[in-house]
């Protein structure tokens, strides 16, 4: 469920678009027809964003770090540099 919503909606992009629309409205002097289209888009984005905020949790995945490689690497360098 969470992943599904994730794929559908890029939160950052959607939020930025909503902000752009809001800024556009804040500028005043708006064309009624264009305004109506943007208004509808804004409401749609807001609804999606809020839905997305409700449904998802964070997920922690542990990744493997190859320490051995690095430590060997480190030692090898040390050896080669030694006089």
């Amino acid at each position, binding site marked *: 469920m*969470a992943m599904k*919503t*994730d794929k559908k909606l*890029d*939160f*950052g992009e959607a*939020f930025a678009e*909503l*902000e752009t*629309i*809001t800024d556009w*409205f*804040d500028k005043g002097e*708006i064309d*009624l027809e264009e*305004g*109506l289209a*943007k*208004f509808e888009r*804004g*409401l749609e984005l*807001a609804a999606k*964003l*809020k839905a*997305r*905020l409700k449904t*998802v*949790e*964070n*997920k*922690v*995945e*542990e*990744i*493997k*770090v*190859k*320490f051995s*490689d*690095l*430590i060997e690497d*480190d030692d090898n*360098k*040390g050896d080669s*540099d*030694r*006089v």
Partner: protein
Amino acid sequence: MREENGLVVYDVSEFIQYLNDTLSAIVDPARVAVEGEVSSFNISQGKWVRFDLKDADGLMNCFLTTYQLRVDLEDGMKVRVYGTPKIYPKYGKLSITVSRIELVGEGAQRRAYELMKKRLFEEGLFAPERKRGIPRFPRRIGLIASRESAACGDFLRILGNRWSGVVVDLAHVQVQGEPAAPQIVAAFRAVNARAEPPDVIVLTRGGGSLEDLAAFNDERVARAIFGSRVPVVVGVGHERDETIADFVADLRASTPTNAAELVVPDRREIVYAIDSSVSRLSKTMDSRIAQTDSELDRSVSRLETHIRRAVHRIQAAIAGFRGAFREFAANAVSREKEVRVMTTRLESGSGRWLRKIDERIAVATRVLATLDPKAVLRRGYSIVTDRQGRVVREAAGVDIGAALNIQLHRGTLTAEVLGADKSQGTLPI
């Protein structure tokens, strides 16, 4: 090396080799350290490090490469040197080939920290212009921390309180002790190399002493942060703790909790922002519609006014026309009457006038007949006129000898005045 009569004879270089073998056999660099004060510290060609390690009565020459030098040294610092004593064949000089240097005491550590900070600052690792921005809504966060640490727990807890939908790639490392620095460096490498690299990397641990935080003051870690392709947030310890890692980080968090606050927004703030966006949109839209409404009303009322005015004008014109026509009709009727009266009067008057004129002409004819001078002439009277044809009525004014015409009833005489009695008024002709 050769034996002569129970005597072992070495060439010089062989002897040095023999001594070096013996020294390395008796000094285990993992178990033996020499403690002393640094003096005559020197780096040549940016690669070779030489200094003397001394105490009140002794001095040992030390040698290593800059790569092995992981702390910043200067004369007067107290250090512990790990390494192998070795004679250099060329000069016959004994020196310790250093594999590791440990700072002794808080003073030396602070000093080394200050020196490194200054050096890295000068190199530009802390430059504000290279700091990168953190995306506002990260989808994936690389977390380099110790899995069991309170710092890791705090970070994840606050992250969850504030935001959701984030995938955290946790790279578990030791954050303390000798392996910490290389593990952190490896973790940076691993996180950066992922097929889907995170939007931001968070390196965090709790507070501690200068020694506890050694990995975060390690130059290798500093360079790993500097070299990371993904922007890095460092949150170490308490607010008062400062580490080299903090300075190199793209964004410095004061604590692990603060790191979570910096990398994700607060859900409530975003909900508020969305709600306020919606209400601003609605308000603007409402007022725009109201504006259009009133514009429409105004237009309609202006149209009405215009139409009303036009209607009034037309009505006034019609009324004017009607009045004028009525007047015209009335005039026409009265004129017709007048004409009729006049005609009647003319018709009735004309007969009377004609009769009167006839009578008057008859009378005048009679009068004229009585007044005709020729009738008088017939009765014997004459009319005397002068040469100019003027009727002569008195003697005065007529000269003797003047010619006069005398008109008779029949014919005319021309006479000459012979004398005149002007008093009696008779002319003797």
